[in-house]
């Protein structure tokens, strides 16, 4: 069933497993026991932060293949992305593998974009399995998008902390516990937010748009889900999303949660919460899968949200276009 880029997959597509590798700060957060590997430092045994991020992607995929008892040759497609110019990180990490590769960029919505594309290709019968790997690194992104990390400046309370993490998921047509039921491709939504620190506010309208479209496509209400988990809106963005949805008469209650808020304890000084492509990727591929395994949730709607800003667009005073993709998961 297809309606204007909302898909309901007739053929079964499953999430066979996931692996997450995180940095030290994330390893002190509430989800620490669910991560597969915690790096002791944001730069471990590599000569640059970028190379550390490449190593994290490598580790995430290696751990995933080990956990799912698979190997490069048995995976049909590698979908991956990160935040650094021209997908530097992913291109190098993918170069080490014997898997055909497509690079993706949707900022923090990249994991959702990857699941959506991989699942669509599996559903169509073109491929049998796909690895989706997405990462971000606090220092590589800060120095690219904002200011040097050692600069002594104060950041506003509504800014977000870029997560140092890589998450990888294995999508497969072979039967397992979590099924990718359907998805909705988001539209670029721009409500004119210009403050590059206020990404939650920039992304909330995109998330609301996609949620509304997905629910209307499926003929559902928010009650039909046990959890509607956005990827990196932060506390501020999540509150704004709920306000926007209430205006559309959607019941926006405690079932709406945010990956960026799950990642850290409030006392970890992360302002509004975590952000960055690796945030949703690592939370979804570790803690969320575990929740499914423990039968905590039956039906979950993932909303990957991305702020599509660049240093050039922000420097020239442009607004921040945003996107959100929805992925519907179901316990089998």
């Amino acid at each position, binding site marked *: 069933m297809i309606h204007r880029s909302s898909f309901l997959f007739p053929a079964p597509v499953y999430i066979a497993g996931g692996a997450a590798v995180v940095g030290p700060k994330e390893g002190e957060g509430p989800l620490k026991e669910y991560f597969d590997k915690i790096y002791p430092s944001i730069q471990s045994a590599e000569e640059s932060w970028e190379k550390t991020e490449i190593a994290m992607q490598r580790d995430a995929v290696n751990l995933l293949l080990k956990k799912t008892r698979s190997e490069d040759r048995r995976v049909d497609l590698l979908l991956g992305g990160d935040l650094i110019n021209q997908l530097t990180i992913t291109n190098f990490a993918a170069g080490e593998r014997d898997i055909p590769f497509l690079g993706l960029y949707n900022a923090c919505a990249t994991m959702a974009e990857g699941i959506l594309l991989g699942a669509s290709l599996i559903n169509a019968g073109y491929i049998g399995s796909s690895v989706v790997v997405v990462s971000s690194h606090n220092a590589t992104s800060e120095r690219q998008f904002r200011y040097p*990390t050692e600069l002594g*400046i104060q950041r*506003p309370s509504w800014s977000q902390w870029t997560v140092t993490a890589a998450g990888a998921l294995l999508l497969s047509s072979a039967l397992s516990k979590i099924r990718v039921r359907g998805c909705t491709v988001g539209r670029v939504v721009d409500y004119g937010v210009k403050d590059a620190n206020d990404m939650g506010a920039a992304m909330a309208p995109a998330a609301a748009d996609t949620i509304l479209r997905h629910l209307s496509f499926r003929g559902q209400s928010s009650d039909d889900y046990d959890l509607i988990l956005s990827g990196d809106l932060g506390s501020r963005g999540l509150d704004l999303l709920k306000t926007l949805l209430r205006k559309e008469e959607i019941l926006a209650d405690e079932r709406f949660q945010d990956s960026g808020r799950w990642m850290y304890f409030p006392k970890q000084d992360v302002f509004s919460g975590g952000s960055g492509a690796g945030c949703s990727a690592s939370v979804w591929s570790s803690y969320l899968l575990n929740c499914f395994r423990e039968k905590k949730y039956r039906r979950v709607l993932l909303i990957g949200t991305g702020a599509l800003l660049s240093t050039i667009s922000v420097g020239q005073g442009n607004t921040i276009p945003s996107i959100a993709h929805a992925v519907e998961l179901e316990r089998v």
Partner: protein
Amino acid sequence: MWTQFFWAFLVGGALCAAAQFVIDKTPFFVSSAHVLVGVVLFGEIMGFFGLYPRLIRFAGMGAAVPLSGFGNSMMEGVFHALKDEGFLGIFTGAFTAGAAGLCAVIVIGFFSAIFLKPKG
């Protein structure tokens, strides 16, 4: 001497607090570069009217340490050179007066960056 300490603390602190007020009340995000540009220009304008040298006499390092002191000394340098060299002094004064500070920033900054590592 003790009153000099007191005034240095008070004036230096007050300049910083005033800058903080401007930062917090600016509707858009300002980086330290924006703040420092403002502070240097403030020092130059105060120096132009001869007010900043008085502040330095009064508060000592409380006025010399904030970057407005750097702006003032460039302004003073231009005035001195103007007196000594005439018109061309306008173009030499700023760097002559700021030479020690600029040289130190470049050399010390260069070696710090070479020998130390960013912590993230």
